[in-house]
């Protein structure tokens, strides 16, 4: 039985310099490490992207002329320009542009940890826009009510805007996480590790077709898991859904891609 399957796999993916059996042996050695590297670089990059992007998104909404805490217009314009600028640079080029920054911050520009820097640089403006979008959905009437009750601008932001937008923020977080996951795969180009590197360096460049497919399928499975998890959590925490009445959740438009 096992031999039969191996024969089929050899017929499908063999023919290169390495047999499927050799590729499987290679995967047994490295696959867990690659999955781990993909996960931790994605998690860390998402975390740092939110550390910068979340406050920035809040400022983009609250600092507007009719926002809860208007900020000087030149400052708002500058922030918008920075966000748009970073979002308009293709990721592959951005990775090269931030090499000096990685050297300064980490002492190296190569490796999985170093790949986090360009990921954060590309993702935080995207995160800021996602957060901005979520907060803009908030009901102006509720903000007005909070203002009428004598909330300070900080109280409106932390006790009204952010908690009320929580389900939408989680949906945005899921989108950001998945986007960063897929961009992380590209960081193999600057020596980052993980499933992307497995697919590009081994699967593609060394013609280990079986490994290429395994890496891609694993990425797809990871994306599915996180998307489902995020969707479930967002719906679970959304108190606007009247569970007793079994109303279906209204679909949210999905935003994709950093650019």
């Amino acid at each position, binding site marked *: 039985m096992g031999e039969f399957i191996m024969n089929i796999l050899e017929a499908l993916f063999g023919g290169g310099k390495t047999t499927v059996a050799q590729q499987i042996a290679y995967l047994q050695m490295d696959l867990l490490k690659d999955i781990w590297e993909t996960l931790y670089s994605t998690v860390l990059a998402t975390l740092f992207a939110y550390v910068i992007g979340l406050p920035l998104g809040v400022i983009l909404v609250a600092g507007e002329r009719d926002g809860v805490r208007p900020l000087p217009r030149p400052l708002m314009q500058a922030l918008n320009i920075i966000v748009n600028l970073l979002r308009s640079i293709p990721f592959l080029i951005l990775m090269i542009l931030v090499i000096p920054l990685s050297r300064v911050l980490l002492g190296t520009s190569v490796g999985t940890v170093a790949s986090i820097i360009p990921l954060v640089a590309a993702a935080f403006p995207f995160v800021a826009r996602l957060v901005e979008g979520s907060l803009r959905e908030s009901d102006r*009437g*509720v903000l007005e009510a909070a203002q009428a*009750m*004598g909330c300070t601008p900080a109280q409106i932001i932390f006790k*009204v805007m952010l908690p009320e937008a929580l389900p939408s923020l989680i949906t945005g977080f899921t989108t950001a996480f998945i986007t960063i996951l897929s961009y992380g795969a590209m960081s193999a180009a600057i020596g980052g590790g993980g499933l992307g590197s497995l697919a590009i360096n081994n699967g593609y460049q060394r013609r280990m077709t079986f490994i290429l497919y395994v890496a891609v399928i694993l990425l797809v499975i990871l994306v599915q898991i996180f998307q489902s998890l995020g969707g479930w959590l967002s719906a679970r925490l959304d108190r*606007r859904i009247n569970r007793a009445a079994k109303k279906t959740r209204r679909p949210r438009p999905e935003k994709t891609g950093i650019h």
Partner: protein
Amino acid sequence: MIELKHISKVFPTADGDLHALTDVTLTVNDGDVYGIVGMSGAGKSTLVRCINLLERPTGGQVLIDGADLCAMGEKELIRTRRSISMIFQQFNLLMQRTCLKNITFPMEIAGVKGEAARKRALELLDVVGLPDKADAYPAQLSGGQKQRIAIARALASNPKILLCDEATSALDPKTTRDILRLIKDINRRLGITVVVITHEMAVVEEICTHVAILDHGHVMETGTVEEVFSNPKTEAGRRLVYPDRVVIDQLPAANVIRIAFNGGSSYEPLIASLAIDCGVKVNILGADTRNIDGRAFGTMLLGLPADPAEAAKAVAYIKSQPDVTMEEVRDYHG
């Protein structure tokens, strides 16, 4: 006491300035239920938002117990706002918080600690008649229930003033009556001054003690509800009080008077007794009466007989009646 002095509000728009309010002066005394009525676009919502400075007036003063809100710094304004509550047409509850947490919200921002706030919120749930909804989320409630929670939330900060911005306009007639009754009850029991913004005269009739009629950003007339309803002095007032009234121009009579009933028992015996006691037959050209607190208010347009002697008899008789005032309709042209 709320004193609005010469309030104006101008919104700059692409097509020039929009004068939402012009020289609005009003006084609302403590304990009043003050109605501000007008058609859509009359500036009512802008006006009520000027009272707590959600809208900053372009000119004029907003005095709450003598203190000018427009002159306050941010901190002082925020402190003052905590004594002025507001409820809205769309309720504006926090959808991600339970009802209890919605009611504790104003206390939370004012620094009232957990258990005390919780206890007060539970009391307020009782006051608004929803003691079992503490852990429900607003999405699980009907419109009327949401407004009750909003009222409980409004009361949480022990306000001196409650502003109601079209608070019943999204509700069905029965729920509207229940909510109005609750507001009236709160006014009586807690002595909270209430300002009611509405386009429905029925709301004013139901709960207000005083009323101001707003038209195109101007206050047309003010007074007690009895005064304004029984005898509106301006065209805007008449349009609101008698929306279906007969247009005078179309009436086929030579000598027209308008009589107003100021709370007598009923209008019908007057016309009947006029015929029986004086032998004068008058023509009822139009009538609009309503029942406020069990008393009759309203006006009636009467066409008098062409004979001046008979007409004078009728006028003298009507003038002798208690609770009835009379005026000639001079703008009549047959």
